[in-house]
């Protein structure tokens, strides 16, 4: 099948294809692997190789549970949920966070963060990226995951609620607190505002 045909298909259609033909699962994996790998790295602070291992386990789980996917939910929310759970279960298994990974912060993400947190854009971009990473890595996990989903993965409140399996009100509270902590930590850095 041509790449263009595949890119025009919805997630649901790809799910149906994968259920009919095992090798078509490839298309779903191709669609999500980069996003999920970045997401794993951002929320878990595992090494790159470990993130790839987790991603493999995620895809296996997704494949095993394809029939359980409920189309009332966005497929992306469902696969992010599985990823989130897999990261947690992996974290529990290892009970250690050996190293921190620097999240890739592109221009778009940077714009969103600077706009939301009222940070002047004139600050040295490299410096700003490093600061954001430092603050993120040191933030409490529950706050980091909502910030990552909101600002890095561009998920709305309802999607975050579906991914984390928390009520929207709780997500909103968590996000507000996370933003407050994030800003407080950012302000500790000189030459920011």
């Amino acid at each position, binding site marked *: 099948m041509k790449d263009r045909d595949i890119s025009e298909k919805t997630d649901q259609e790809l799910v149906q294809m994968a259920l009919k033909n095992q090798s078509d699962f490839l298309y779903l994996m191709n669609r999500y*692997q*980069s996003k999920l*790998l970045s997401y794993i790295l951002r929320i878990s602070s595992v090494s*790159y190789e470990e993130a790839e291992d987790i991603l493999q386990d995620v895809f*296996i789980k997704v494949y*095993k549970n*394809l029939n*359980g996917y409920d189309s009332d939910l966005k497929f992306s929310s469902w696969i992010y949920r599985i990823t989130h759970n897999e990261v947690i279960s992996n974290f529990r298994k290892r009970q250690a966070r050996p190293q921190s990974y620097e999240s*890739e912060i592109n221009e778009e993400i940077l714009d969103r963060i600077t706009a939301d947190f009222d940070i002047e854009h004139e600050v040295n971009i490299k410096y700003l990226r490093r600061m954001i990473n430092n603050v993120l890595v040191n933030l409490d996990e529950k706050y980091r995951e909502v910030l990552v989903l909101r600002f890095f993965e561009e998920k709305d409140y309802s999607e975050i609620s579906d991914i984390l399996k928390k009520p929207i009100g709780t997500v909103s509270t968590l996000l507000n607190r996370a933003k407050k902590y994030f800003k407080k930590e950012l302000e500790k850095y000189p030459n920011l505002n």
Partner: protein
Amino acid sequence: MDKHNPTEVVQSVLNRIKKEDIKPKSRLSFLIKNYSIWFFGVLSLLVGSLAFSVLIYMEKNNDWQFYKRFNDSLVKFIFTTLSYFWLIAFIIFIVIAYYNLKHTKKGYKHTMSLVISGSLTLTMVLGIVFYNLGISKLIDDELAERTSIYPRFINPRVNMWMQPEKGMLTGAVFYIQDPEVFVLKDLRGKDWNVNYNQAVIFPEVQLVEGEKINLLGKQLGQMLFEAERIVPVGPGVRFHEKVIKFHFNSNCPERNASSSFICPNIAK
């Protein structure tokens, strides 16, 4: 992200699926799981409602008007007579219902307080309905008759009335001697001569042989009691029935085959 080699991850997943012959779980298994969660959630709500209905039945028939005879203060009386068995059962089933409802597909969308208050309201409303339908009495009667733990755990109040020295006695009328005295067989199988000529007899009580009653009054001698009030036995009446039937029958072998309480030889 330059280290990222997507093809390798995807390829190794596909290889693993083939090598380990991994197949998607059947749709049926997900349906069974979802329906089971709902089934046990609803079942817990129903059982919780039944527990609540029996709790109402027990508390409503808690002999509130005589609390001073049992305890010095109302608070102490409430704590000593509370139906902990049903209260704990009610709480346990609410927790199970909450757990199941939270684990339904969309259960996470609702806050803990909403799910708990919703479950509580529903359980209480259903409990009141069950109580009004008389189901709570049926449950109490069945448990009183069929379980050995009834007087110890389910309704310890049945033993509270067995304190003649404090002016409380419970049992069944064994036979009526004359218009002033009847013989009462208590829960331990002992016979008491009860003087009742001054007693207030509650309208629910029919003073006939075999009638299960509670007495408030004074212990006058070793097996002599003066009744001031004769009140019906509330929850646990079937337990009385079971125990007293046993004692009646042991005193009256002719009646073993019969379900009647009346012992013709003694009554005469």
